[in-house]
C-alpha cells in the first residue's frame, strides 16, 4: 500500500487576509469569532488586516461596559492586535457618519514600531468607502463576519 502523505503547509507562503467586520458586538457571536480568527491567522504569520464598516464600527467603540448583560467585554483584546503584528485596522468613514460617530468615539489602538525605536503609533486608519473598496480588491482572502 502506498504511503499516505500528510498535506504539507508551506510556511513561506504569506497571503493577504482582510477580516471584514459588519456587525455590532454582543448581539451575535460574529465579532468575537472574527477576533479569534484574526489572532489565529496572525499566529500563522499571515498578512492580516481588519476592516470595520456598517454596524461593525461599534466593535471599536470606547467605554464598552458589559457587566449588566453578563457577557465578557472583549473590546480590550483589540489593543493586543499590534503585538500580533497586525498593522492595519481600517474604519469606514461613511459608516461612522451614518451612525453619528466620530473617530474620537473609538478606542485608541496602537502598536510599537520597531523601525522607529518602538514608538507608539495608531493602528486605526479612517478610510472612505471608495478607499475601502480598493483595499478589498487588493486582498488574497476576504473573511466576512
Amino acid at each position: 500500500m502506498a504511503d499516505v502523505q500528510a498535506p504539507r503547509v508551506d510556511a513561506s507562503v504569506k497571503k493577504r487576509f482582510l477580516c471584514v467586520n459588519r456587525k455590532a458586538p454582543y448581539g451575535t457571536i460574529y465579532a468575537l469569532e472574527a477576533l479569534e480568527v484574526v489572532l489565529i491567522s496572525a499566529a500563522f504569520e499571515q498578512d492580516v488586516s481588519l476592516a470595520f464598516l456598517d454596524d461593525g464600527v461599534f466593535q471599536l467603540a470606547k467605554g464598552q461596559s458589559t457587566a449588566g448583560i453578563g457577557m465578557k467585554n472583549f473590546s480590550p483584546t483589540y489593543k493586543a492586535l499590534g503585538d500580533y503584528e497586525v498593522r492595519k485596522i481600517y474604519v469606514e468613514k461613511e459608516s461612522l457618519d451614518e451612525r453619528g460617530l466620530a473617530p474620537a468615539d473609538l478606542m485608541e489602538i496602537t502598536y510599537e514600531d520597531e523601525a522607529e525605536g518602538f514608538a507608539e503609533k495608531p493602528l486605526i486608519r479612517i478610510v472612505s468607502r471608495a478607499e475601502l473598496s480598493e483595499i478589498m480588491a487588493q486582498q488574497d482572502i476576504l473573511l466576512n463576519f
Partner: protein
Amino acid sequence: MPTLHTVNKSPFERSAFISALNHMRPGDALLMIEDGVVGARKASAFAALLENASQRCAIYVLAPDLAARGMAEKDLVPAAKLVDYGGFVDLVVQHARTQAWL
C-alpha cells in the same frame, strides 16, 4: 482581477445587499443566494438599484434557491442571470477572490 460578491440575506431584512453594491468595483460580479434571491425581484423596492448596478457588474441568481422560494426567472429584473450549483463553482473559479456579504 475581479471579485465575486455573494449576498445571502434579503435586502428587506439586512443591509448586506446595499453594502455589497456600495463596495463593488466595475467588472465584479454579484451572486444572490439563499434569502438574497428576493433582492432580484422585478418591480421591487430594490429593482432600480440592481438594474443600475448591472451596468457595471454582472448579476447572477442561484436557481435552486429561487425555485425553493416559489419564484422563476420571469419574476426577476432582466439583468439577472440564473446559475445552478455548477455555475456557482465556475464563478468562484473565474474570480480572484470571493466576498461573502452576510
